[in-house]
């Protein structure tokens, strides 16, 4: 297994379970299950035991491995600078070894099968991919400055489609030249890679790269931070070199082109950092710049924010596999409660997966009357003069 030489160097001190201010558990899987086995250190020790034939690769062990949402908190907080950067790669390698051994939780298997067969985890045909944009008048990509890349959730999930339409509408109002693809593209593959199915990821990435290159794409705006991460950091290794930005990064610097109005209300907003925009790509400011520019709005922070943000639990394929669903201890519900404690009436998100996860969580928690989960572009749209 890749990186197996560092497994025994984990002391299991537990810094990886916490944010840097120690307010609460910050590893989604450990928060959900609470057994030491589900913590990053637990995984390190179990993988070593497995390679040493002290334990076998059981169904339980597979659940432990695939419950990792790849949020990156462990990498951020690990006390050992000489190998902390490799932690997620170790877990991905562990999942890869489980896939090779055929020991995979059924929802993970189904998720991967659908992507393999259909190019997306919804099992829907590619030609339906651009349906979210129907009636918006968005041109197919030809020679526009940007390609607007919409991930699986934005393309196929009802709520995700609303978000994709909202973002596209603002890009249009900001006068940004962009086009979309017509269903030739497939899943960005980000979470497939986090799950450890590297060959499938490479297949997906190569398909997308071929499409991008054929169309002459140079600059890409992504709807999802997951797409941002894959396209920006993993596609170059496969020959796909583009200037990739998350839409909030582009809009943060386009605010001057948009006319904003007073709404008559002064909403208090708290922002949930998406792991793949924040911890994985170190951008904590773009969404906040947008929110702080809204007339009358104020931004309050949750105890765990920016590099300490608590993951919604949707990463690493868990959005689809739902392994982290854990009643009141599920990461989404814990995060929704934390947001409500700030007193904010709006919980802003910048990722379609986070939006769905946290909306569902807020409903289950009975918070919908005092905490609305809204995507940054949707909040912004209400302030646009022509919005």
């Amino acid at each position, binding site marked *: 297994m890749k990186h197996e030489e560092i497994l*025994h*160097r*984990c*002391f*299991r*001190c*537990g*810094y990886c*379970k*916490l944010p840097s*201010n*120690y*307010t*609460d558990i910050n590893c989604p899987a450990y928060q959900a*299950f*609470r*057994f*030491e*086995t589900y913590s990053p250190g*637990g995984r390190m*020790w*179990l993988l070593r*035991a497995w390679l040493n034939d*002290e*334990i*076998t690769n*059981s169904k*339980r*062990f597979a659940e*432990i491995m695939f419950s990792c949402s790849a949020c990156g908190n462990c990498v951020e907080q690990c*006390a*050992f600078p*000489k190998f902390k950067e490799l932690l997620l790669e170790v877990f991905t390698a562990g999942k890869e070894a489980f896939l090779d051994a055929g020991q995979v939780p059924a929802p993970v298997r189904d998720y991967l099968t659908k992507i393999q067969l259909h190019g997306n985890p919804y099992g829907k045909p590619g030609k339906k991919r651009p349906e979210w944009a129907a009636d918006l008048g968005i041109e197919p990509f030809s020679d526009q400055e940007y390609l607007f890349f919409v991930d699986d959730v934005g393309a196929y999930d009802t709520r995700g489609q609303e978000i994709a339409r909202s973002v596209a509408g603002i890009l249009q109002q900001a006068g940004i030249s962009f086009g979309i693809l017509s269903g030739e593209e497939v899943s960005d593959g980000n979470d497939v890679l986090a799950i450890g199915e590297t060959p499938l990821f490479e297949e997906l990435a190569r398909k997308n790269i071929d499409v991008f290159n054929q169309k002459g794409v140079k600059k890409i705006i992504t709807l999802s931070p997951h797409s941002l991460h894959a396209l920006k950091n993993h596609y170059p290794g496969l020959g796909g070199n583009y200037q990739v930005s998350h839409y909030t990064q582009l809009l943060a610097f386009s605010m001057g082109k948009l006319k904003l109005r007073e709404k008559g209300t002064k909403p208090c907003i708290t922002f949930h950092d998406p792991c793949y925009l924040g911890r994985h790509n170190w951008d904590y400011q773009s969404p906040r710049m947008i929110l702080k520019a809204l007339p009358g709005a104020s931004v309050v922070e949750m*105890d765990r924010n920016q590099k300490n943000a608590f993951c919604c639990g949707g990463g690493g394929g868990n959005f689809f596999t739902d392994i982290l669903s*854990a*009643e009141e201890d599920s990461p989404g519900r814990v995060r929704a409660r934390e947001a409500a404690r700030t007193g904010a009436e709006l919980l802003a998100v910048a990722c379609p997966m986070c939006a769905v996860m946290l909306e569902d969580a807020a409903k289950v928690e009975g918070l919908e009357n005092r905490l609305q989960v809204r995507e940054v572009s949707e909040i912004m749209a209400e302030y646009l003069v022509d919005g």
Partner: protein
Amino acid sequence: MKELIDRLKKIVGERFVSAESEERYLYSMDMGTMPPSVPDLVVMPGSTEEVSKIIRLANEYKVPVVPMGGGLVLSGLTRALKGGMILDMKRMNRITEVNPKSRYAVVEGGTSEGMLQAYLKKHHPELKHSLPDAPPIATLAGNVCIHGSGHLSVLGGYHSDMLNGMEVVLPTGEVVRTGSCSVSSDWFGKAPLPDLSGLFMGWAGTTGVVTRLGIKLYPNYRYSDLLIFVCEDAEDMPDVISRLTSTQVAEDMTPWMTPIPEWAKGFMHINIAYGAHSKEELTFKRNLLQMSVKEYKDKKIGGFLPMPPPQKARYMQIPTPDLVRFADVRKGGGFEYVGAIMAIEHFAEAYRAGVEIAERNDVSYSMGARVVGAGHSMMFFYAYAFNRADKEDMARAQRALEETNAAALEMGGIPWKAELPAQQQIIEKMAPDTFALMNRIRETLDPNHIMNPGNWERT
């Protein structure tokens, strides 16, 4: 066993009981050198009531129960030596009260040091509690129960001295309270009642399960500073410590001696942390500390180490991840230490013994101490790093630990949170009637011998 598991699931919920091989493997050991002992299952209670029900059930089935907090003790005290269940307490992590005027906090038995630190910082920035050098996931209850010490120990003694009272589930399932909270709704202290808290501290979980505890809080100063005194002769250390503690201004004093980095080798360092409400007060306290050891400076046999601000900030970080990084010295993820509680005057003897043992066993070492009270005693530690993947290296560290325990006892010290072999060494030296009393107490409290059996027993 299946019937027991089903009944446990009814108490705590299906998700919080496991007899799976993964949990049984991981909970069979800690990060130290003690060999694994595999539990039959792991249970995670969410309330005192659940703990009580679990304990009653364990009595019914005569199944051992091993309470566990952060699991960071390193000396194997939370291993299920005779099977049974590990009671992972960390779901019980609520902070139920902070009394800012009487300066105490009441927390559940699985509350981590880090969580209380964060809570106080946010809600009561004028207060702090004494943090051990353990990682922040370590639990307050666990640390108090092992007589831990921390960064306010010169001020307040051992963490068990900072205990105001406890709620404990007895080995027979009854819930008792010790200290003022047994009579009053306030958790202000142990006086004036018979001190029953002692029945649960230092016993390695053999007398009950702590489900709540009240601990003392202290003023959090606006200004903090650190001095490092350095001298070359270990024989001078008791006098230096005595002089520094006589000023009564330090919050924490931690001597340290390490062969790496090279500039530190052969020198005795003492980190002296102190704080103040104003800059003038801070200067006054600094002057007091410096004046107390002026004679050493005048004789040119000691002095204060100049420190650039970033280095000072690193030394003042509480807790600091630098300490666990010692585990990577041999690129092997392991270290364990003997912390010997002893009188200050044995400092030089303790230091020499540590160097001899480390060199004889060819182990990477770091030594240090924490002064407790106004020099009333110290916890002198000998930490040995090992490579977990190298059995011979682990055996070397284990040998060094055993020799160190013996040496500590020989010079009048007592190994702290003693691992099983060290417990035997202590029992051998203990007054026989004292050990007999311990056994009578255990027999009375735990007639079915279910609480962490194997510990504090003569083999």
